[in-house]
């Protein structure tokens, strides 16, 4: 049997597929999409809301707290938070503008792959950079602010706290990489494989 003969059989098999009436289709069209791009859009929405919330909290803390070093810390957090919100907003806008589904299949795969990789790269970079940045900054401020209570920081335990902080940062970067890979890794590899099938 060749492909031409299969055509008849294929169409016969399909005639047994349950046809949906218009009301069933309307119901389907009111559900949520589960495509990867729509999932990213939803993630970005939540991440932006969380960033706005934390930035506002940091801003309030900067106004209310009297310790100079913590004030500086919160101010920097607000600035980084605002930059973060701008990045997330732009990425979200870029993804919303993309109309990949009506493109030719090859171009759709290329664009979808690019969007997912872009999101993963930005998310990973932010996750990887934020933890060590804030830990180093916190230690730096602590060293130069003698008004802070010495409950946590003493000459003897500071060394170990720095070691713990570095270990935490490395673990954070590692887990962040693993997490992003578990969410999108297989998808990216599958799309790359599909793209290579065009060669």
């Amino acid at each position: 049997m060749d492909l031409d003969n299969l055509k008849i059989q294929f169409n016969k098999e399909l005639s047994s597929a349950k046809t949906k009436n218009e009301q069933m289709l309307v119901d389907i069209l009111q559900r949520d999409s589960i495509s990867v791009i729509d999932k990213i859009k939803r993630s970005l929405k939540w991440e932006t809301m969380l960033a706005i919330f934390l930035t506002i909290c940091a801003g309030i803390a900067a106004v209310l707290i009297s310790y100079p070093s913590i004030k500086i810390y919160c101010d920097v957090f607000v600035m980084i938070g605002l930059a973060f919100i701008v990045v997330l907003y732009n990425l979200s806008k870029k993804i919303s503008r993309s109309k990949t589904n009506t493109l030719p299949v090859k171009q759709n795969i290329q664009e979808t792959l690019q969007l997912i990789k872009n999101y993963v790269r930005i998310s990973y970079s932010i996750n990887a950079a934020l933890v060590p940045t804030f830990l180093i900054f916190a230690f730096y401020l602590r060293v130069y602010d003698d008004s802070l209570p010495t409950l946590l920081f003493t000459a003897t335990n500071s060394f170990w706290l720095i070691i713990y902080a570095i270990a935490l940062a490395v673990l954070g970067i590692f887990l962040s990489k693993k997490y992003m890979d578990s969410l999108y890794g297989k998808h990216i590899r599958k799309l790359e494989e599909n793209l290579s099938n065009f060669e």
Partner: protein
Amino acid sequence: MQPDKVFVELLAKHQNIIHKVCFMYMQHANDREDLFQEISLQAWKSFSNFKNQSQFSTWLYRVALNTAITFFKKENRKRQLIITNDEVFSDQSEEPNLAEEQTAFMYKAISNLGDVDKALVMLYIDDYSYNEIAEILGISANHVAVKMNRIKSRLKEEGLKYYQM
């Protein structure tokens, strides 16, 4: 957002295209339903871009294939079309005849193809010309011809191996 009546009517009329794509890319009924829903949703979201420059059926085919090829419900649950003799002849108590056995073999061989090759096979058996296939896939008509020849040879080779067993 309430779906547009014109769109729903068009979708109802051309839903066979979506069924075909679901049948080709998903093995299990639940997964086919999920893919059907996703293709319908993506078509609805993109409907404002449909400019009547091409036929609705060709446009829907493109959206359906794009959605199916990039669809991953859960990464470890993505299944390929693997149709066994048992599934094809599940409603028959008698031994399958030669034609049925050949059909089952063809489905199995097609299920082993990559997602892009499956799209080519689908469009081919749905009587699209090489130029139309090229337009949907975004490659040249010559490339389509080359790839179709390779697919046909591969299926033929697998057929020969199967019948020599």
